[in-house]
């Protein structure tokens, strides 16, 4: 008898070796479900009904049902139209200021009243949209192009490029956006040529490392996917596999972060203008108006509230849009991938 044979302590009979299968000491019924209740289906049948949906189409379908997305998209569209055609929304000339109107409250035709110089607040808020939006959009564009390209190269090729960019990113992270921007805006070259563009360049200088980091992470994830390996084995060159497969699959997090950051850059511009190192005073912008209003805060708080409200709602729209897009593109919500 083999050594590893066990005995049942109750009846002393040998228990059959595990690997030979087990027989119960209880009686077990053999049940078979009626076939008409449990019909066999084809193995792995292909769904042929329904419209084919790409990942983007699927995201779009879930997006357009989200109230958060609808509200923010409508608001952003409105802001863009206002920035492009301010004259459609205000019949007043924002640069026409009469001192006799100084700090006057709102009245017909001038619903928000006047500021210290007697300019119409509503007209200034409407005309100030353009500068804020320009800063947000162009800073985001530069950051996405520069940060995205560097991050993608670092993530895809790795090695020394990656090491250098990682250290460079760390260095920029040690200098917070506002602090760094103040220093740059104080440089003679910038201080003497203040314009929308100096603000954009300054914010982009300190904004790209964050986007580079996010792109790098997304690219590394996509780079190691089997479909990239497969495309290389099909004969696609390394660079083409980056452009055709890796980058399109890394776009989702970049789009989300860029959208949210667009709002953040608008806030940063306002903060710099508030500190007196942002846009030049002659450029009409929400940040400049808020900065001007702070001296009259106690006597005429609405002068600060209106531009601040417009700015906050605009920024909120971009952040909400980013949030909605993130939910729609969430890989966990998607099947597979």
């Amino acid at each position, binding site marked *: 008898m083999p050594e590893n044979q066990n005995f049942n302590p109750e009846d002393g009979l040998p228990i059959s070796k595990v690997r030979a299968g087990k027989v119960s000491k209880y009686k*077990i019924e053999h049940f078979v479900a009626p076939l008409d209740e449990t019909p066999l289906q084809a193995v792995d049948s292909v769904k042929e009904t329904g419209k084919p949906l790409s990942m983007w189409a699927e995201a779009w379908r879930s997006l357009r049902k989200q109230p958060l997305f609808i509200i923010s998209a409508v608001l952003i569209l409105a802001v863009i139209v206002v920035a492009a055609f301010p004259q459609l929304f205000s019949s007043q000339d924002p640069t026409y200021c009469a001192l006799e109107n100084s700090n006057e409250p709102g009245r017909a035709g001038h619903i928000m009243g006047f500021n210290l110089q007697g300019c119409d607040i509503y007209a200034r808020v409407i005309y100030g949209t353009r500068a804020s939006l320009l800063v947000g959009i162009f800073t985001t564009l530069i950051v996405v192009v520069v940060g995205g390209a560097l991050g993608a190269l670092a993530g895809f090729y790795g090695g020394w490029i990656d090491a250098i960019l990682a250290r460079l990113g760390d260095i920029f992270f040690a200098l917070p956006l506002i602090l760094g921007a103040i220093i740059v805006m104080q440089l003679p070259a910038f201080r003497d040529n203040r314009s929308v563009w100096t603000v954009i360049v300054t914010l982009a200088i300190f904004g790209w490392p964050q986007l580079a980091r996010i792109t790098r992470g997304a690219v590394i994830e996509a780079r190691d996917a089997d479909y990239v390996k497969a495309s290389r084995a099909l004969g696609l060159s390394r660079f083409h596999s980056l452009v055709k497969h890796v980058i*399109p699959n890394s776009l989702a997090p970049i789009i989300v972060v860029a959208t949210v950051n667009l709002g953040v850059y608008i806030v940063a511009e306002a903060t710099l203008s508030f500190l007196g190192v942002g846009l030049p005073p002659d450029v009409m912008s929400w940040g400049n108006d808020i900065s001007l209003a702070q001296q009259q805060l106690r006597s005429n708080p609405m002068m600060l509230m209106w531009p601040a409200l417009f700015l906050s709602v605009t920024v909120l729209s971009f952040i909400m849009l980013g949030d909605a897009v993130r939910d729609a593109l969430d890989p966990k919500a998607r099947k597979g*991938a």
Partner: protein
Amino acid sequence: MTETATPKPLLEIKDLAITFSTPDGPVHAVRDANFTVMPGETVAIVGESGSGKSTSALAAIGLLAGNGAVSSGQILFDGEDIAHASEKRFVELRGNHIGMVPQDPMSNLNPVWKIGFQVKETLKANGLAGDNPKERVAQILADAGLPNPEVRAGQYPHEFSGGMRQRALIAIGLACRPRLLIADEPTSALDVTVQQQILDHLDTMTSELGTAVLLITHDLGLAAERAEKVVVMYKGRVVEYGPALDILRNPQHPYTKRLISSAPSLSAQRGDKHEAIVDEIVPGKVEPLLKVKNLTKIYDIRKGFGKKEKFTAVDNVSFEILKGTTTAVVGESGSGKSTIAQMVLNLLDKTEGEIVFDGEQIGNLSEKNLFKYRRRVQPIFQDPYGSLDPMFSIYRTIEEPLRIHGIGNAASRQKKVKELLEQVSMPASTMHRFPNELSGGQRQRIAIARALALQPEMIVCDEAVSALDVLVQAQVLELLDELQREMGLTYLFITHDLAVVRQIADNVCVMEHGKIVEQGTADEIFDAPKSEYTRNLLGAIPGASLI
């Protein structure tokens, strides 16, 4: 051996229905399920993914996902209906009455707590820590077969191998001596030899403690070997249950029959082997299509502060593949089998040795010749979710190789894509769809179509069917076989599953730790294995001695 008086069942599932509420409406995961577990008995629930096997078991321990609930029926544990029991009642039951061993050892231990802590809190929660919890924890870990339990208790999960983690999870599941243990695919993430050891140990422990086990598995061979009773589930319903060996040898329901005929572990034993196509070619007379000679891959592993360690992933490997045949490279995780595939595909540089394809050295090919080589050798990868670009439609996916190699114009390419889809038995309408709309098996068929687009001579299948359910796996293997017959393809088939090998391979190389320990024809390997390692691998195929 059969008692006439039937005692009270420990767990009784009666007309159970479980429904998940989803944004697309309710999903009925389980319907009209009935089965019982007697005290001390092992019952296996067998089914494919989505059959409702795990859902049924999780309902018995109150761990259904948030959107799932028992919609009708009863779950009687020791006579008490717990289908709708309160969270408080479940906290009392879990651990010391009903224990659980989960599926994936990598994600089921909290990475930030020591193993000993995670065992100890189980004891404490159930009031069983005693006066010397440390000693008790060590004892429990030792019982689960972990050597040096005192040291092991002080380590973190990431310091454990997969098999050791699973032992720790078994220790936790059995720490409070539950009367029922739910084991949810406890070994499907592990290598076969480790799986065998762990299941043997689990068997010994539960029979010593008299614990009843509800074993959930996709492998009918394993179920039949480890359980007294087998419950077969299909699309949320119990289609058949009965004594394990009876189910295996005398299946009644057509689904069970289909499952048994498709399971590689069982068919391998039956001798459903691959029939050679090119038996007229005598080795030696014909020049092989692929010749791998003394192939070696050494990695430098950085150990911090400039220290480096050499790791030999592939160690002096040689084999040949004749045109129109299939050679399988079999090994457990870490054996270096996938590294060979990557070097043959020229996706990874070799350290030493030669790879000769059709008389030409691979590795120092010029850019232009490499491009030509790519056309002749195509891969199919393991993960059906990862191998297709989610952004590309099926049409673009299959067309991509044609486009890269500048074959045909738009119209002829479209015709070709349709032909290829037909070859892999997919409707032509699929080409407008996207990978996320297809199942795993369907994606793998698309990957095959893509590989065939350039009419290659050799296809490298890197674990191409490992992630698929048995029925789908059988279907894809059959497709590969058909294509080989039609087109005279040559396959290099990389797999961890020796059972699959018999269905597809003419020749087999068995690898361990980067070296080939045995090679020969499939018949030689299966009928007269020479090395101890191959014998262990063969012996570990579940259900080995049952048919």
